[in-house]
């Protein structure tokens, strides 16, 4: 099992480039430890801004820094960052088009048993409705690295969500094409499509492999970029496979499933199933337990696929 979390990869990449590019600034809200940014802060004290527990100020300051030419990366728990400071995200970053990268750490149900206060299961929904900001959720450590390489050359507002713990590898190396806004076909298949994002990509891939044993061709799309959404890949899947399941670590409202459904119903209506966290405070437990409880699992994906194929 991989031991490196996606947030550690983000920290490593920033540490590698910050020495060369003095405009890279990391901001934290008493979150340097949880964001794996302690070593960055020690190595580059002049490029690290601590604002204390004040998320509104965190985002506003980042926007101000960007407006004078800095390249700020905000690292703070996704649950607070995307709720407490959402107006600063909407106005100071997205509306004003400031080059701020907003990295929500410990996203989804990473904080497990800490409860709804610490879950970020509405972040995609709220961010999606704001014009001018991209949304990216990497699937594993390799994809996080690919994403960071792209982001270093990407001018403009982006929200990135990563989990707290290391996730199982989906890729085995960096040797693949990655482009912001382009879904990646992880498995080919023409009977059904599973569209996944972030930590659920691994589940989707495993489910596809299991379905293959039954002779079912299950396409898997890794929708690492939720916005701008790769509509073409979705419409193609609808046409070619006729059934779509989405799976995400997010509320069933307003997330990946809703985004995909908007495209499907307006272009090529096909039967769909949206898997995610239902409209309730998520049950206590670790991520794995919560995922299993709500059917974000290989076995449930298998069952849902089979029932859609009937």
């Amino acid at each position, binding site marked *: 099992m991989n031991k490196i979390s996606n947030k550690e990869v983000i920290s490593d990449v920033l540490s590698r480039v910050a020495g060369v590019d003095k405009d890279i600034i990391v901001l934290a809200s008493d979150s340097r430890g949880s964001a794996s940014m302690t070593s960055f802060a020690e190595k580059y004290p002049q490029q690290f801004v601590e604002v204390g527990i004040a998320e509104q100020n965190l985002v506003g300051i980042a926007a*101000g820094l960007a407006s004078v030419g800095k390249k700020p990366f905000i690292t703070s728990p996704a649950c607070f960052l995307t709720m407490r400071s959402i107006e600063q995200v909407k*106005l100071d970053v997205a509306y004003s088009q400031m080059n701020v990268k907003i990295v929500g750490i410990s996203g989804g149900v990473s904080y497990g048993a800490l409860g709804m206060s610490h879950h970020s299961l509405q972040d995609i929904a709220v961010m999606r409705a704001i014009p001018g900001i991209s949304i990216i959720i990497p699937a594993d450590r390799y994809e996080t690295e690919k994403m960071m390489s792209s982001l270093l050359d990407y001018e403009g507002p982006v929200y990135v969500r990563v989990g707290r713990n290391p996730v199982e590898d989906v890729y085995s190396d960096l040797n693949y094409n990655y482009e912001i806004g382009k879904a990646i076909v992880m498995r080919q298949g023409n009977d059904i499509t599973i569209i996944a994002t972030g930590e659920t990509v691994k589940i989707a891939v495993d489910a596809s492999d299991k379905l293959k044993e039954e002779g079912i061709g299950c396409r898997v799309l890794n929708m690492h970029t939720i916005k701008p959404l790769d509509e073409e890949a979705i419409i193609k899947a609808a046409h070619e496979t006729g059934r779509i399941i989405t799976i995400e670590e997010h509320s069933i409202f307003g997330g990946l499933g809703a985004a995909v459904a908007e495209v499907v119903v307006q272009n090529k209506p096909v039967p769909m199933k949206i898997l995610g966290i239902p409209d309730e405070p998520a049950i206590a437990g670790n991520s794995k337990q919560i995922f299993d409880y709500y059917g974000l699992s290989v076995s449930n994906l298998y069952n849902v696929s089979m029932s859609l194929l009937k």
Partner: protein
Amino acid sequence: MNDVLDLKIKATQIRLDLINMIYESKSGHIGGSLSSADILTVLYYNVMNIDPNNPNWEERDRFILSKGHSVEAYYSVLADKGYFPKEELKTYCKFGTRLIGHPNNKIPGIEMNTGALGHGLSIAVGMALGAKMDNKSFRVFTLMGDGELAEGSNWEAAMAASHYKLNNLIGIVDRNKLQISGNTEEVMSLEPLEDKWKSFGWDVLTTDGNDIEKLIDTFNAAIASANDKPKLILAYTTKGKGVKFIENKANWHHRVPTEEEYKAAISELQELMEVYLNEQNIK
């Protein structure tokens, strides 16, 4: 522009322009625009180091209108400075205009979109911090309303400004003591306001925010200050300043004048303008 009389004429012209904009578009925030007209005039014609022909000049002083609803005064100043054609003021709040009812950074000279209250100071902190990181000498100014100081985010930013010793940051509070629902002290008391800022580690300077000469002196003193504290200019103003029947009335926060009121307001300001112009001729 250093001559006080010239600046008084300029401020009066700004008031005339903004009332025309509001009357023409039938929308706007007349009270707060009038109260802040002198502060903006002094900043843009005397204090700030800017080049309207080169709005993205890296060394320019930065300004953020945190009380974004006073945008009519702001647009009038920017147009007069030449950031965009004065003729364009007529499009204010009309269909498809870029001169929307709150500052829009698609317009040359405007750094950031504002309009939701309690945002400007954090942005200004980021700008001032960025200047310090790069050893740049530009200064950052932000004009806040008094009513907006109830937003907690201002105090997060106030804390950060003194923590990071941002003596290149000058905040101005347009202290007209009125907000949309009435007196600030009845809506949510701000006093003792000077002590609040001081306790957050700021140098506080108080002045009459509708007195051009005093404003110049106060800005000069704030800029000359050698300590490492951020500066706060508590500018005591009159909401609706310049038009007697609008002055000090909360219901003029965003009322649009009737034709009769419009004519009366314009004529009062024109009379004042004539007085100033006569003074100028005598000189």
